[in-house]
């Protein structure tokens, strides 16, 4: 049995939990907490981390695990674990909270440097009246044209599926000889 992983990251309250919940076959999810204690890395063996966790069984030989991880740099020790066998990752951003765009940009750069696997950016809450337009978000996030910025409403399964599929297409494209 093979297990593969995808990770969903992003600023606090971007919609990671809901995203995973929308497609996961098991209802095992944690709510992200703001952990405020300092020196966590020094005691990481005793530190507990609350993460979102979902599963999609593909067939009897293949399982996809979805991990929703806090995006703050102080949790980067989890990436050493999660990046093993990770197919790719998704950066979730709340389209209605531009004050989080800078943090999202930082998370994206950090994670891409740590694990240079394919990724997509999901602009969540696109159904909200005060959601930023995708083009404006692309400029604000300084995303290159090659990076996929996808509309998403994490409570709608169709858009969540689309984000996952676009990431898989990117992975496939890279396998076939270079990112599209």
């Amino acid at each position: 049995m093979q297990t593969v992983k995808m990770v969903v990251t992003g600023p606090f309250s971007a919609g990671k939990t809901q995203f995973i919940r929308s497609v996961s076959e098991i209802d095992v999810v944690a709510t992200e907490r703001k952990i405020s204690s300092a020196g966590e890395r020094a005691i990481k063996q005793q530190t507990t981390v609350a993460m979102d966790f979902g599963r999609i069984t593909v067939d009897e030989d293949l399982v996809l695990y979805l991990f929703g991880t806090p995006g703050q740099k102080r949790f980067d020790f989890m990436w050493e674990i999660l990046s093993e066998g990770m197919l790719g990752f998704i950066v979730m951003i709340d389209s209605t909270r531009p004050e989080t765009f800078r943090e999202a940009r930082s998370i994206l750069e950090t994670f891409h440097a740590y694990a240079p696997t394919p990724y997509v950016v999901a602009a969540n809450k696109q159904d909200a009246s005060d959601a930023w337009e995708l083009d404006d978000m692309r400029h604000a996030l300084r995303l290159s044209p090659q990076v996929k910025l996808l509309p998403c409403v994490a409570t709608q399964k169709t858009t969540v599926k689309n984000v996952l599929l676009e990431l898989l297409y990117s992975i496939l494209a890279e396998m076939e000889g270079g990112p599209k």
Partner: protein
Amino acid sequence: MALRGNLRDFTVTQLLNLINLAHKTGSLVIEGPNETARIAFRDGKLSYAQIGQEDNHLATILHRSNHLTSGQLRAIQLRAAHVSDKELGLMLINVGYITQDVILNALQSYFMDVVRRLFTWVEGVFRFENDMLPPEDRIAVRLDLENLIIEGARQLREWEQLQDEIPSLDMALKFIERPGTSMQKMNLSVEEWRVVSYINPRNTIQQIAAAAKMSDLEIRRIVYGLLQAGLVEVIRHESMAAAAEQARPQLTVKVREEQKSLVNRLITRIRSI
């Protein structure tokens, strides 16, 4: 009479107790299935410990305990490779970079950690060499054994209990699914998350341990915790999958076509949700 025997008859904790009570001087050499450990004593107190070929030079120990940066360690390894630990320690103290207490604490902590790892050794032979002292170029410490012995006894009881609870690592694990219930909260340690990511009925606990680089004791402890929390249950492993699988259950696809096939399977599945 030579102090020698088998770990099946004497545990490491019992040996430490004997050495402590007899105020022995010399080295306890333990040959395990995979590596050999050597623990030196003076008058029944721990003075030095080494396991396998693990690098236990002072610089490496100080780096592990965050008293030297990676760059500093590399510089010392390059330019001071011929310097003994004693000389290196004196140099660092003389330039005011570190104190003697810090050096001794780092060494003691490391040696104690080596001994703790030996508590999980249940297979092997041992002998006590009266004339074997710590290497000349290393710094010896002087550490009372009582606390380590108590810790070893506690760990032995835990080990026995865990073996009763999880007698075989050839079983598999499965998430407990309760239809109709809403979310559960999962707040786990880093190592528990590592294990969780490998759980499915086709992976034995032994395979998970190998993939997660955990000892028998560590994996039993974590699985026991997950069992007690009601997150997983132990099930019979499907032997057909076990026979075909490598020790690492994680994806290690090497062939490009296999990788592409896998991604295509994922795409098909996601479309069907």
